[in-house]
């Protein structure tokens, strides 16, 4: 960490844009490609203004051809460029999953190390805006199942600003998931904010009684819950996983060695979620540390409905986190 510069007010959206601007400025091989990143300004206004700044070759609008332009991004990476491919949202990335799993994640191993794919793919993820079943998936956990990929989930302004550059230095494909509800999040960043490491999880809030493990937007529900729990005298330690693949086990295991209780909060569907993987790893590596079984709070296993009350009911809630934490701490 270089010395911190003066703080400036900003938003998650601006932080991502700053990261893009920095990358495009520093490295000529970097370009941004995706649907509506140019003339429209980005579906979430993240790339607004960059077309004028960097031109249509480097801020490249694509047709609706997710598989085609993700595959083209892989090829461009093989050809010496450093593409940032934006898939508008994770919901549409299923159309490109064959390219991501069978090419991007596989070529290096399958070629015996001859070729690597320095590609960054950004996508918006998550529910919360009443966009209904086909626009509310949280599939970052599913992507974390695939060997050969790195999966990042920037939850803070610092990570939104800093993870992109580090990802671009990585010789392998990196997926960055930006939760759509975070773009308007406000906060401050040092003027000289820049690259951050992407290998470890971070303790967002220290505590002694229970470890709450989460990532992305759900973290803020965990922090709210932790505040309320504190008033009840329960000190929850909140951990931001930051990177879903490869997982940093050490950080949460260290915490559990202290708290002896773990609760995982995950916006993905419960069965086969990344939270299941973490629970299984705790079982395998910290079984004898546990004073209570690890619990999970995930989204209901339903396509996310449009109606506001139904959508809220389908997602992890602060009240549920508090209730679970209390139960776990009181018992055992």
């Amino acid at each position, binding site marked *: 960490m270089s010395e911190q510069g003066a703080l400036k007010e900003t938003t998650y959206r601006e932080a991502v844009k700053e990261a893009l601007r920095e990358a495009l400025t520093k490295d000529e091989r970097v370009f941004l490609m995706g*649907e*509506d990143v*140019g*003339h*429209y*300004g980005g*579906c979430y206004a993240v790339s*607004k203004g960059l077309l004028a700044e960097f031109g249509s070759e480097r801020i490249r*609008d*694509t*047709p*609706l*051809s*997710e*598989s*085609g332009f993700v595959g083209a991004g892989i090829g461009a990476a093989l050809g010496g460029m450093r593409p940032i491919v934006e898939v508008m949202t994770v*919901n*549409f990335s299923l*159309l490109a999953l064959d390219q991501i799993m069978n090419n991007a994640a596989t070529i290096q191993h399958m070629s015996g190390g001859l070729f690597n794919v320095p590609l960054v793919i950004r996508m918006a993820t998550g529910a919360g*805006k*009443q*966009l*209904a*079943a*086909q*626009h509310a998936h949280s599939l970052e956990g599913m992507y974390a199942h695939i060997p050969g990929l790195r999966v990042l989930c920037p939850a803070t302004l610092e990570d939104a600003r800093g993870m992109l550059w580090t990802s671009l230095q990585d010789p392998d494909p990196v997926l960055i998931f930006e939760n759509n509800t975070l773009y308007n999040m406000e906060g401050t960043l040092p003027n000289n904010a820049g690259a951050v490491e992407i290998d470890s999880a971070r303790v967002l809030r220290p505590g002694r009684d229970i470890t709450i493990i989460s990532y992305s937007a759900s973290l803020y529900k965990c922090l709210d819950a932790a505040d309320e729990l504190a008033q009840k005298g329960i000190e929850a330690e909140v951990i931001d996983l930051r990177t879903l693949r490869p997982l940093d086990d050490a950080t949460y295991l260290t915490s559990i060695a202290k708290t002896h209780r773990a609760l995982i909060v995950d916006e993905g569907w419960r069965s086969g979620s990344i939270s299941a993987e973490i629970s299984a790893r705790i079982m395998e590596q910290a079984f004898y540390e546990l004073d209570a079984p690890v619990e999970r709070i995930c989204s*209901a*296993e*339903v*396509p996310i*409905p*449009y*109606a*506001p*009350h*139904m959508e809220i*009911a*389908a997602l992890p809630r602060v009240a549920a986190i508090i209730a679970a934490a209390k139960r776990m701490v009181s018992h055992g």
Partner: protein
Amino acid sequence: MSNIIDREHAINQLRQMLLIRRFEEKSAELYSATKIRGFLHLYIGEEAVAVGVMAALAPEDAVVATYREHGQALARGMSASSIMAEMYGKQEGCSRGRGGSMHLFDAATRFYGGNAIVGGGIPLAVGLALADKMLDRNRVSCCFFGDGAVAEGDFHEAMNLASLWKLPVLFICENNLYAMGTALRYTQAVTDIASKAYGYGMPAKAVDGMDVMAVEDAARTATEHLHQGKGPYFLECRTYRFRPHSMFDTELYRNKEEVEQWKKRDPIDLLSQRLREAGLLSDQDWAALEQSVAEEIEAAVDFAEAGTWEPIEDLTRFVYSERRRA
């Protein structure tokens, strides 16, 4: 122009376009009032396409639409009330409040949804047509999609399947020149969309999508072809979206002049003028139309307002069918 003679039909077409127009103007209002949330994609300016095409379909035919489907749903005969209630998220809505604006469904009119994955609905129409063919039902499956969808692999695969298997699919491309904020010239190497049908051995026609009668004529030609078992038909309707892509769009990608130019070809004005010139539409007629449309929409809003919320306990219903094992 054969239809002009049939005043009743023409007036009905005009009323349907007006209903869609006013219904969506009201929806935009209600969106600002936060009664409607999520994505709202307005069809304003494109009404002639849905109204013209639906006039050529029979009740037993099937329809697959996109997330910009209020027009198709209304023109297909779904009630404004069930659609408005859906957008309110009320359980009296056509999809129980689970789908919202992008996912309108209706069994009675065989309306297989509002699909919000661009291109994702096209293969469904192929399958619906395949079922009809295998069950010896002489019916049409009609799918609507935009100019942007033409770049998707699903478009290509579905076009080939429908033609290869000679299925009665009516492909309706609503070419409004933009895919969200990306102009057709930035998405297609060949911008003459209808011409692409030939690569699939499919007859195709491009029609003025602002002229409801031209659209209806072309659609009737198409459905006749389909009913003769000659395989699919491709119809490109050249139209324009007067409003932003969705309620979040700041329209950086097109200029006001272009929009104004197209507004001069407003499909509702075009038809009403034609009717007036033919002496088939008086000021009173028009006022009456506006009146009845206004009443229908008011009733729809009342219905939606009076609607109830689906109980949260029902959240997990319909993930799997309740009558397990048909």
